[in-house]
């Protein structure tokens, strides 16, 4: 992520949309990937990502500069996605889509064969994540895809280190059990 200065955050908090756009450009990549993997469905991911940035914009003036800005944005993204999934599960609207859209995947050149591999890999990850509950899914995504350490995951999700460990352990036990079925 490009460094985001305190000055840029202050400007965006005062309503400077150009400053906010710079923040969006620097953070939207990881926000979208976290949200997409936790939500497992592209149209929900679009909606949640939009929601995340509206919340970020609204809360910028309350960002205390005491913690990392990236962790703060991760927290909003992960919590918004988790809450969305839990709400969808309660309403029995959870749905799985295998639709890695052609337009947004970074394809090197015309390597269609590689793209097909990517498509399969994305489908596999989507189906694996579906066996986890939203809290476990968030831990796995932050660890495996964003490569955050345990402390940052704990700070992001506002849980303690042992909860991070136990969620990862249970999630991986489920993933291994899923692998044995294949």
């Amino acid at each position: 992520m490009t460094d985001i200065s305190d000055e840029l955050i202050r400007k965006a908090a005062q309503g400077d949309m150009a400053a906010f756009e710079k923040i969006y450009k620097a953070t939207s990549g990881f926000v979208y990937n976290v949200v997409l993997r936790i939500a497992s469905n592209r149209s929900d991911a679009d909606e949640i990502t939009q929601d995340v940035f509206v919340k970020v914009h609204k809360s910028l003036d309350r960002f205390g500069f005491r913690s990392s800005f990236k962790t703060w944005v991760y927290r909003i993204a992960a919590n918004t996605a988790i809450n969305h999934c839990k709400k969808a599960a309660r309403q029995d609207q959870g749905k799985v889509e295998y639709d890695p859209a052609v337009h947004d995947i970074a394809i090197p050149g015309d390597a269609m064969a590689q793209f097909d591999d990517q498509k399969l890999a994305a489908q596999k990850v989507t189906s694996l994540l579906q066996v986890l509950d939203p809290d476990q899914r968030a831990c796995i995504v932050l660890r495996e895809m964003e490569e955050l350490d345990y402390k940052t995951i704990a700070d992001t999700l506002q849980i303690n280190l042992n909860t991070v460990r136990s969620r990862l352990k249970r999630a991986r036990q489920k993933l291994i059990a899923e692998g044995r079925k294949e």
Partner: protein
Amino acid sequence: MKCEEIQGLILTDYADGEIGPETRPEIEEHIRICGTCRQLEEAMRRDAREPFKSVMKELPPAYIFERVKQAIASAPKDKNDILENVRALAGQIFLPFVKIPRPVVAFAAGAMVIVAIVIARPIGEIRAVDQYLGEQASFMASLDTADTNGEGMFDTYIKTGAEKFV
């Protein structure tokens, strides 16, 4: 370490590089000699880690930022916003007090109350004021009681004569 403990670490700290360099060789040696733990470590890598490594990161569709801008522009400046501002202002004003430990705040508040009482009631006057207030309270309590037949002190005085109160 027993297998159960090793397996817990294989699924967490060992896999994620969160383990200290002093413990790692012990786990590696255990995995080398224990078939069950070795199988778990292989399954962990194959089924729970590698699938995530081969997925490319994606970029959000371009229209999302346009939608974000629209949502921000159309956000109503309603009562909630005003309340939010008041809350934020109150937070800024009281933030220094929030940082002071609660026992200190309680002690300071108690001390302020005691000082206020002492200032409001000079010690020399306290007894005289208490005595006066006590007499007045007794007098008021005797009004409109059985002693006065519900007629009030003045009426009773008229009827029974001043000697009752001498």
